[in-house]
C-alpha cells in the first residue's frame, strides 16, 4: 500500500506572538513544529505500513526550511519525503494549496491512501484535506478516529461526530483526515534519526509539477485577507439584581432594547 501523508509546518502554539504594528502572526524567531494533527496522520500511516506493508511518503508544500519537518517525519517512521517548494506558491490560500498538492501527488504517481490532519493549528480552516480529495476526484472521510477494517479495495473507518461516530466504508483510493483520538504518536527512534539525517529529500518546483501558474500562490487564491486584528476584550458588564421575577423583567427589557 502506498500512503501519502500531507504535513504542514506551523508555528508552535506555545510561542505565538502578534506583530503589534501589522497585527499579523510574527513568525520570526518562533519555533516551527509539525502541525500536531498531522503527527497523528503520520503515526496512523506508519502503523498501517507496519501491519500491512507498503510505503509511507510525507509531502509538504512550503519554504525550504519545511524540509525540517519532513526529516522529523522520517525519524518517526516515514520512508520517503517530498518537498514542494517554489516562490510561485507564496501566499496560497486553501484553494491554491490543494491545486499545488494535487499536482504534486499526480507527479509522484498517486497513492492508495492519503492521510491528513483534521486541520492545521495556524489557519484552522480544515479545508485542505477535503479540497485535495475533490481535486483528485477520490472519496474522503473527515475526522477519522479509527481505521476499523482494512482490505485491498476498501477501508471501514469511524468518523467522529458531536454525538458519537459514523461507520463509513470507503473504496480506495481515498483520503482521510484524522483527529487526535486515533492514536498516540511515537517519539523518533535513533535509527529513524540517522536515516533522516542522510535522506535525500525530493524537491519539486512549479515547473516539475506541470502547474498552471495562474492557479498558484497569491494569484490563484480568491481569498484575500483584508485585515487581521486581535479582538478587543470589552469589560462592560451589568449586574442584574433583585428577586428572580425582577431580574427576569430587567433582563427581558434589556434584550428587547438590543433587538
Amino acid at each position: 500500500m502506498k500512503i501519502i501523508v500531507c504535513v504542514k509546518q506551523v508555528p508552535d502554539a506555545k510561542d505565538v506572538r502578534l506583530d503589534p504594528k501589522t497585527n499579523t502572526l510574527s513568525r520570526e524567531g518562533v519555533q516551527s513544529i509539525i502541525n500536531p494533527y498531522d503527527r497523528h496522520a503520520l503515526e496512523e500511516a506508519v502503523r498501517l505500513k507496519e501491519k500491512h506493508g507498503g510505503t509511507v511518503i510525507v509531502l509538504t508544500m512550503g519554504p525550504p526550511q519545511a524540509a525540517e519537518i519532513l526529516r522529523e517525519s522520517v525519524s518517526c517512521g516515514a520512508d520517503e519525503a517530498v518537498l514542494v517548494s517554489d516562490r510561485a506558491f507564496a501566499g496560497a490560500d486553501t484553494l491554491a494549496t490543494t491545486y499545488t498538492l494535487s499536482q504534486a501527488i499526480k507527479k509522484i504517481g498517486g497513492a492508495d491512501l492519503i492521510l491528513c490532519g483534521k486541520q492545521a493549528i495556524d489557519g484552522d480552516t480544515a479545508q485542505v484535506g477535503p479540497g485535495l480529495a475533490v481535486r483528485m476526484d477520490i472519496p474522503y472521510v473527515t475526522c477519522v478516529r479509527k481505521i476499523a477494517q482494512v482490505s485491498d479495495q476498501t477501508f471501514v473507518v469511524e468518523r467522529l461526530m458531536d454525538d458519537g461516530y459514523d461507520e463509513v466504508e470507503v473504496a480506495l483510493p481515498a483520503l482521510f483526515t484524522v483527529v487526535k483520538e486515533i492514536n498516540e504518536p511515537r517519539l523518533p527512534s535513533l535509527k529513524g534519526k540517522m536515516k533522516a539525517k542522510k535522506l535525500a529529500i525530493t524537491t519539486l518546483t512549479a515547473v516539475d509539477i506541470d502547474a498552471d501558474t495562474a492557479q498558484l500562490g497569491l494569484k490563484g487564491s480568491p481569498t484575500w485577507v483584508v485585515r487581521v486584528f486581535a479582538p478587543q476584550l470589552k469589560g462592560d458588564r451589568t449586574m442584574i439584581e433583585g428577586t428572580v421575577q425582577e431580574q427576569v423583567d430587567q433582563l427581558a427589557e434589556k434584550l428587547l432594547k438590543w433587538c
Partner: protein
Amino acid sequence: MIVDLSRQIADELIIPQRAALDESEEFPKDILDAVAKADLFGIYIPEEYGGFGAGTFEIVLALEQFGRGCVGVATAFAASALGAFPIMISGSEDMKRKYLPEIATGAKKAAFALTEANAGSDASGIQTTAVLDGDEWVLNGTKQWITNAGEAKIYTVIAITDRSKGPRGASMFVVEDTDPGFSYGVKEKKLGIRASSTRELIFKDCRIPKDRLIGREGTGFITVMKTLDKSRPGIAILGVGLGQAALDEAVTYAKQRVQFGKPIISFQAVQHMLADMAIQLEAARALVYAAAKHIDAHPKDMSKASSMCKVFATDMAMKVTVDAVQVLGGYGYMRDYPVEKMMRDAKILQIYEGTNQIQRNVVGQELNKEYTKA
C-alpha cells in the same frame, strides 16, 4: 542526535510522570518501552550485536538527560547497561550473540549482582557459591539491593567458585529469570529513586548450564572491576543531570519569588548560592565528559579518572540539591515542588556503584602506584 532524543524523552515522558512514580514506587515500564522503541537501549552495544556501537561518552550524554528527568527512571535504564557490561567485557562470542541483541532492543533488561549482606565495599565478603556438578553450575546464596531485580530477565552474578584462591576464586555467571532455584526477595522501600526496583536475588540450588560462566573461572573480580571502571561515569553524569535540574528549578524560582519587594535572585546571598551551584555543576560536567572520553580511548588506567568523576559529580549533586531546597525554602521542602525528591534521589549517587569513600581509596591507590613508577 542522541541528546535531542534523550531530551525529548526526559521532557515529554519522564518529567510529567516522575512525581507520580516517586509516590507510587512503580517501575517505569511504559517509559522504558518508549526508550526501547527509540533504540536507546542499544547505544553502547556493538553494531555486530544489534546496537549502535557508541562509546561511554554517548551513554553519558543520554544519561545526563534522563538524570535531569528522574534519577529513579535513569537508574532503571542504566542498570541494564551495568548488567550487560560483564558479557561485553568478558563473555564468549556465543554468549554475546545470545544475550546482547535482546538487551540492545530493550526486549530484555539486564541487571548486575555483586552486593550481599556482608559484602558491600568489601567484595571479599561474598558468600554466594557456585559449584560445578557435571554440566551444570549450582548456585547458592543471596544477593542484596539488586537494581532491576524482578524486572530484568538477564542477571550477571558473581559467586565464589574456589574460596581457597581468595580474590582469584570468584567467577561471574549469567542467570536467567526462569532458571530453576532462582527467586526474588521483597521489594525494598527506599529514601529516593523509588521508580527503580531494588530486591534480593535468592539462589537455592539454582542450576544453570556450564556455558553460562562469563570468561574463565576465577576472573570474576577482574570483570567486576572493569565493569565498574566503565560504568562509573554513567553514575557521575546522573549527578550532573540531577544538578542541572535542581539549578533550573532554583533559578526559576528565585526569579519569581518576591520578598522585601524584590525577586529573591536580586539578593546577593541567594545569587552567590546559585553561582556556586552553577560553578560546581559546570566543573563536574567537564570532568565527567573528560573521563568518558578518556575511557573511550581504551587506556590501561581508567580507574582513577572514572573514580574521580564519580566522587566529584555525585558530591556536587548532593550539595546542589540541598542548596536548591534551601533556595526554595519552605516550598522546597514540600512535595508539591520537585526539589525535595531531587535531594532524596541525590543521596544514593554517593553510595551505589562503590561508595564515594571507596572511590577516594581508588584514586589514592592509583596515585601511590603512579608515583612509585616514576
